[in-house]
């Protein structure tokens, strides 16, 4: 009974711990083989902590991290750096969670529409397919714009719209994952933002899986982008050319 009451905080805690452990592994693995997520999320922290720069001193005055680096128990792997893993979780993880929740807070009705369409069959497949097509479309458009002088300045705008769309989509996917966990694990009723937070932690954990994380995160971001576009940012009406035909 007690466990059921606190099942959401426990689940969030387990997912956060799992994320930190996965980052720890990411740091230890480093860039031994192509591991882009480790480079982007965790590796810069582990290497930066060894450098004595003005920048480092300004943001890391305690320098606790340098005393918490251990040798790897497995030969051939890099150092075990739990401090860097926690720091990476608290920065990248918090960033992802906050951005995902911001989308839901600012556009709750649109988020609901989008999640409803994602939960319907075959919502996830269509969203992923649309995301894949949109990546190709964006590549084509951006490359075409690059060969013009007049529209070159539009390129950052196109990329910004794609980024915002993907972030909104990832927020909706996080909420859908939270709702799915609620149904499957028979968890008690909770505020939707808590469910979305847990969903965002699942997304983060998937993203920091060594080697496979980059593929998983790309798939989620593409599905998010596709979901946002096919639902026209979660509008109830969807895409229609009726207004143009008068």
């Amino acid at each position: 009974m007690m466990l059921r009451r606190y099942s959401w905080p426990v689940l969030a805690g387990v997912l956060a711990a799992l994320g930190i452990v996965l980052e720890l592994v990411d740091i230890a693995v480093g860039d031994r083989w192509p591991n882009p997520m480790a480079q982007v999320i965790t590796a810069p922290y582990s290497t930066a902590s060894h450098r004595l720069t003005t920048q480092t001193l300004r943001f890391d005055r305690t320098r606790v991290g340098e005393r918490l680096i251990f040798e790897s128990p497995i030969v051939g792997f890099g150092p075990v750096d739990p401090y860097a893993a926690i720091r990476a979780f608290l920065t990248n993880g918090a960033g992802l969670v906050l951005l995902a929740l911001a989308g839901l807070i600012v556009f709750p009705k649109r988020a609901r529409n989008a999640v409803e369409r994602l939960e319907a069959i075959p919502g996830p497949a269509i969203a992923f397919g649309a995301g894949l097509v949109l990546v190709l479309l964006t590549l084509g458009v951006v490359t075409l714009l690059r060969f013009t002088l007049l529209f070159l300045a539009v390129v950052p705008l196109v990329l910004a719209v794609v980024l915002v769309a993907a972030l909104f989509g990832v927020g909706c996917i996080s909420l859908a994952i939270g709702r799915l966990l609620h149904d499957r694990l028979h968890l008690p009723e909770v505020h939707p933002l808590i469910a979305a937070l847990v969903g965002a932690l699942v997304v983060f954990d998937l993203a920091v899986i060594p080697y496979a994380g980059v593929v998983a995160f790309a798939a989620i971001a593409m599905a998010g982008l596709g979901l946002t576009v096919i639902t026209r940012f979660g509008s109830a009406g969807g895409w229609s050319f009726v207004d143009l035909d008068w």
Partner: protein
Amino acid sequence: MDNPLACARVRVLLEPFVDGDLDANVAEQVRRHLVTCAECRRQHDQAISLPFRLKALSSPAPRASFAQDVMRAVAPARSMDRQVWTLLAPEALLAGFILWYLSGLEGLSSIASGTFNDLLGLAGGSLPSVPPVDVVLVIALIALTCIAGYHLSLLIRVAPTSLQSRRHA
């Protein structure tokens, strides 16, 4: 005063009476008869009950081509579902061709870095130099953009609708 109607005549008039198709004078005579005749009143009650009225309606015979028409109406949806996924093949082919034409990911990243540098230059006030581009590459890019746009429109069409829009409908 009008002659009172006989039961046989009233029973013939019951159906148009219930439908409100009789003129006022005849309808009044039927109404007066119903007040006095229990059997005709029972028949009237039956006539106004919904199941009875539905039963009385004759359903039109289906057209000879009905089954074929239904199958034809269903078929485009299936072919569209197939088309939605098969369009990935020409897109992948075009993307592969473009990548090959640009000398792989290296060429693509050089375009990206070139764009970034040009944008920085633009922000600094200097006009960027537009790289000369092959017509074949431009055609391939336009084809990829058009196919991807069409593909996206198909995906939007087959995507499930939201519960809210279904509620509005």
